[in-house]
C-alpha cells in the first residue's frame, strides 16, 4: 500500500469535491436555519400545549382562549375588519421573498444594477412588514393586551403573542440590516470583484426562512 495519498488539486472544501456539491457557506446557512427552526418550533409547540390546556373560546368566560377574529380586527385607519391587516402583512412578506429571488437571479447574471434594484425592493418589503407589526403591537397594547393582561381572554395568549411575533419580528429586523449591508457592498462592487454573488444567495436563504416561519406564526395565531 502506498502510505502517502497524493494531495491532488485542492479545492472546494479542501477534499477535492464539496459535499452535496454546494458551497461551505450555503450548507452552513442551511444548518443554522435547521437549528433556528427548532427554536421556533419549541415556541410554537409551547403555544400549542398552553392553548390546549385552556377552555375553548367562550365570550362569557374571560379565562377562555380568545378568538383571533376579535383580537386582530383593526388596521391603520379602519376597524371591525378581522384579519385584513395581517393579510396585507403576509402579502408584503411573500412579495419581498419574490424580489429576493429576483436579486439572487440577477446575481447569477452578474448584473450589479439588477441586484441593487431588487435588494432595494426586498428591504422596503421588510421595513413595511416590521413597521406594520409595530403598529399592530401599539394598537393591541392600547386595547389593553400586554404580556400580563388581556381583555380578550386568556392572559397567556397575549404573552405568547408578544413573545413569538417579537422573536419573528427580531428575525425580520436582522434580515433588513443584513440586506442593507449587502446592498451597500453590492453598490461598492465587493461581490463584482469577488466574481460571484453568493452572499446574496445566503441572505436569500435566511430571508425565505423568515417568510416560512411566518406561515406557521400566521397559522397558529391568526387562523386557528
Amino acid at each position, binding site marked *: 500500500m502506498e502510505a502517502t495519498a497524493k494531495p491532488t488539486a485542492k479545492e472546494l472544501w479542501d477534499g477535492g469535491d464539496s459535499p452535496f*456539491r454546494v458551497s461551505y457557506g450555503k450548507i452552513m446557512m442551511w444548518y443554522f436555519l435547521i437549528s433556528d427552526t427548532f427554536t421556533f418550533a419549541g415556541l410554537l409547540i409551547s403555544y400549542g400545549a398552553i392553548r390546549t390546556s385552556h377552555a375553548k373560546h367562550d365570550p362569557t368566560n374571560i379565562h377562555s382562549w380568545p378568538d383571533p377574529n376579535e383580537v386582530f380586527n383593526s388596521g391603520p385607519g379602519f376597524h371591525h375588519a378581522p*384579519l385584513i391587516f395581517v393579510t396585507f402583512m403576509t402579502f408584503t412578506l411573500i412579495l419581498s421573498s419574490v424580489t429576493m429571488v429576483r436579486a439572487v437571479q440577477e446575481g447569477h447574471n452578474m448584473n450589479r444594477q439588477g441586484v441593487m434594484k431588487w435588494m432595494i425592493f426586498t428591504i422596503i418589503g421588510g421595513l413595511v412588514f416590521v413597521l406594520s407589526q409595530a403598529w399592530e403591537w401599539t394598537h393591541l397594547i392600547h386595547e389593553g393586551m400586554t404580556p400580563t393582561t388581556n381583555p380578550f381572554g386568556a392572559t397567556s395568549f397575549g404573552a405568547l403573542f408578544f413573545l413569538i411575533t417579537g422573536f419573528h419580528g427580531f428575525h425580520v429586523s436582522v434580515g433588513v440590516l443584513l440586506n442593507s449591508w449587502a446592498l451597500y457592498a453590492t453598490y461598492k462592487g465587493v461581490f463584482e470583484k469577488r466574481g460571484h454573488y453568493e452572499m446574496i444567495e445566503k441572505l436569500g436563504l435566511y430571508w425565505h426562512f423568515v417568510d416560512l416561519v411566518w406561515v406557521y406564526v400566521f397559522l397558529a395565531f391568526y387562523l386557528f
Partner: protein
Amino acid sequence: MSNLTREESKKRVWKVCGILAVVTAVEIAAALSHYKFFHESPKMLLNVLFIILSAAKAYYIMSEFMHLKYELKAMAVTILAPFLFLVWGIIAFLWEGNYWLSSKEFWDILR
C-alpha cells in the same frame, strides 16, 4: 443547479408568488366565512384544511425559493429528516396540554 433558462426561472418565480398569494387568500376567505356564517360550528375540519394549505406553502417556499428542489437529493434529505422529531414534539406536548386541561377540570380551577 437548475436546468431552467433565465427566462424560465424568472417566470417560475412569479408563478410560485401567485400560488402563495392565492393559497393565503383562500385561507383568509375560509377563516372569515367561518367567523361570519358558521360561528357556532366547530372549527376542527377547517383547522385540518389550514394545516394542509400551510404545508403546501412551506413546500413551495422551500423547494422553489430556497432552491432545495434543485440541490442534490441527499442534501434535501439531510435537511428535512431532523424535522421528523417535531412530529413527536407536537403529539407529546398537545397530549400534555390536554392532560393539564383535564386536571384543571377535575380540580375545578379552569381558567
